[in-house]
């Protein structure tokens, strides 16, 4: 950073540059102000807490999507994985003690992600294709294991998770806290950990990374596995909120996750993107849904608005690269 904030904001051109650079945060703030003006309900704690609860699941898989996209890949399987792992968790929590059930679900998520990772890193399959296959497999399996209907939590452990997922600590929903912790860990990892730095290097120039002696395949494998583990975490959270695991969960969530990452300024070519901006992307998408709901806009027009916002955000980012 060559300029201080004050220097940057001292000229109109500087302000414009600043706005473009931090455009996601800027859009986010604009949306908050707009929402507050347009609806009295928006700034109530009930609404804000609902908003956070709604975005936490997608938010967590968006973080997984971010690290995959940073390497220049994509993970289309995360939405279906949420369904499969939510069903898995519901079954497991009815059999095993809660900590064991949680652990097993996350390990299974990691394992499922590893399949994509293996196909992409070691079999050189295109990420789009490998994870598309995993997406339909996971969705199909979730229907098979649940026999097509939701699996309800029946044990004390399940009840505990349900309470946890629907309650708040210091006014912040517990599941949002989980999401924020994951965001902070990812921020730290991308900035201060070798793993994070190397996946950015790989996404920025895979050949140069290889010739720098980096184990490119290992890291590409790991990002998909981690994305799977994060899908498991998201699955546990969404299942616990409703006290059940359903094969219909996570429908098209992979698309929302990609949208959130892209709105957050990440490049689908890899090498560019941050956790904080992805968080903003998630909140922006959530906010749009929330305010449109408050305005009683039906869900189809909502989709149109969402798409328009994505285009607007990405167009804005093009100024930045110029």
């Amino acid at each position, binding site marked *: *950073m*060559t300029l201080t904030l004050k220097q940057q904001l001292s000229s109109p051109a500087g302000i414009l540059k600043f706005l473009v650079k931090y455009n996601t945060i800027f859009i986010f703030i604009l949306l908050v102000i707009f929402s507050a003006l347009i609806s009295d309900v928006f700034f109530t704690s009930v609404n804000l807490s609902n908003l956070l609860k709604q975005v936490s699941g997608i938010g967590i898989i968006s973080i997984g999507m971010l690290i995959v996209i940073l390497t220049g890949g994509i993970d289309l399987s995360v939405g279906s994985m949420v369904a499969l792992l939510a069903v898995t968790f519901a079954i497991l929590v009815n059999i095993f003690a809660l900590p064991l059930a949680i652990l097993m679900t996350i390990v299974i998520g990691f394992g499922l992600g590893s399949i994509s990772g293996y196909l992409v890193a070691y079999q050189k399959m295109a990420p789009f294709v490998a994870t598309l296959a995993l997406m339909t497999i996971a969705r199909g399996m979730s229907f098979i294991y649940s026999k097509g209907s939701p699996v309800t939590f029946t044990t004390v452990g399940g009840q505990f998770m349900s309470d946890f997922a629907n309650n708040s600590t210091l006014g912040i929903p517990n599941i949002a806290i989980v999401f924020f912790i994951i965001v902070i860990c990812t921020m730290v990892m991308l900035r*201060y*950990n*070798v*793993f994070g*730095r*190397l996946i*950015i*290097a790989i996404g*920025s*120039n895979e*050949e*140069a*990374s*290889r*010739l*720098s*002696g*980096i*184990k490119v395949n290992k890291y590409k494998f790991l990002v998909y596995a981690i994305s799977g583990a994060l899908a498991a975490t998201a699955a546990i959270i969404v299942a616990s909120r409703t006290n059940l695991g359903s094969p219909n969960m996570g429908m098209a969530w992979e698309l929302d996750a990609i949208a959130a990452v892209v709105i957050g300024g990440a490049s689908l070519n890899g*090498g*560019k993107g941050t956790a904080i901006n992805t968080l903003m992307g998630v909140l922006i998408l959530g906010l749009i849904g929330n305010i449109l709901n408050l305005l009683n806009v039906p869900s189809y027009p909502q989709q149109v608005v969402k798409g328009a916002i994505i285009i607007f955000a990405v167009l804005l980012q093009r100024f930045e690269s110029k």
Partner: protein
Amino acid sequence: MKNSANDYRLEMTGISKSFGVVSVLKNVNLKVKPGEIHALLGENGAGKSTLIKILSGVHQKDAGKVILNGEEIAPKNTHEGQVLGINVVYQELSLVNDLSVAENIYLHKLGASKSWMNWKGLIHDAQELLDSLGFKIDAAAKVKDLSIVQKQVVEIAKAISEDTKILVLDEPTTVFDPNDVKKLFQILFKLRDQGVSIIYISHHLDEIFKIADTVTVLRDGVDTGSMPISETDKDGVIHLMIGRELKDLYPVRDIKIGTVPIFQVKNLTAKNTMVHDVSFEVKPGEVLGIAGLGGSGRTETAKLIFGADKKKSGTLILEGKEIKTNSPVDAAGYQIGFVSEDRKEEGVFLPLSIRRNISVTSFKSISSKLGFINVDNEYKKVLGLIEKLNIKTPNSEVNVKNLSGGNQQKVALAKWLSIDSKVIFIDEPTRGVDVGAKIEIYNLINEVAKKGVGVVVISSDMPEIMGISDRILVMHEGTFYGELTKDQFSEENILRYSIGEPLKQYN
């Protein structure tokens, strides 16, 4: 079309061209008659390709005139060039792998023709053309299924499918065996007799003397001579190609070369490239130069040693112990460094900061067991290198894409200097770098050598490689053809070995 006053078909006069501050062509003349084979010669970087690219419309000239059949032309792109009858067979193949041979040959026409494919006619015409060339190639086959020789033939067929007036071939025979070369020559003779003007670029002097009628030589962007081939001989041509003075571009260093080799390579042969039976050793503190023409296998050799290409056989010995480098990860683990010639594609991370570029190889020394980076150490290390290499930047957070070529190259070097390499391969250390930065890079290489590192420098720049090396190995067609000690250094000797000629004996 009016008749020109003389009998030249093509007259390029006073052509000049610069890329940024680098002047590539200075007042160059090239005159070609109809129905002649005109050889264009020169070292790597002499400006041959640029001249051809100006002719064909890839580049635009800064000054000068191009006259074709008495009319001044200035093609703005290759399409305009083709319409004028100028066709180029480039060294790098420009075929579409997933389309058929026939489609490739007529690709430029497909876009302009009707909406529906006339498969029958297309394949028939292409087959006829290929048959007339005397090579057995199925016009309906996919290009990706062809051998490299066949691809080159398709490339030639593509160039002559037009109403070609001027055909340029850039090193067409590098992949051919003698038999194929003969066939190619027959095609060229036939075209010549039909009145096509052929400009033929090659490093093989033998070939030139077999087929060319006239020869023009370029050196450092200047044409040093043009004459009928009958009026000169190999020595005369070689003399025109070289003959520069070594400038005092190359810093003097105090050389301390160890006696025991730090790194040895024995009978190294590649699985997928032409590199074969490569053996050499480098001693600590030594700067070993590897010379040779483009395509002789220099870069491939370095990549092979570094584990970026697959080996078939051979032994690597580092500090007396045999090592295996099956991947760049292994090589980096043994503290072998490699600075790629292709800086932008393989050397640096353009969108990332200088700091992130440099520390990518050295995380081991600046991070904890769990992989957490000690940012203070990182900054210390990076800022130290920025200062030492004199990288011109306001700070370490500037993205590498915003640096000049010379400074980018220093970043690429810094990446390997930040770990203590034992052997370091530097491929084209100063390509696209201005003179000031060149000297700094040479100083850097000297300093690295002084620390006892074995430095291997690959370079096409002859004065450079003679200026900085203690010893030069010359590659020719995938293996070392000869070794030159310091007292034998001369452009002529390097060139002779490069083209597979023995040294001239002086008494």
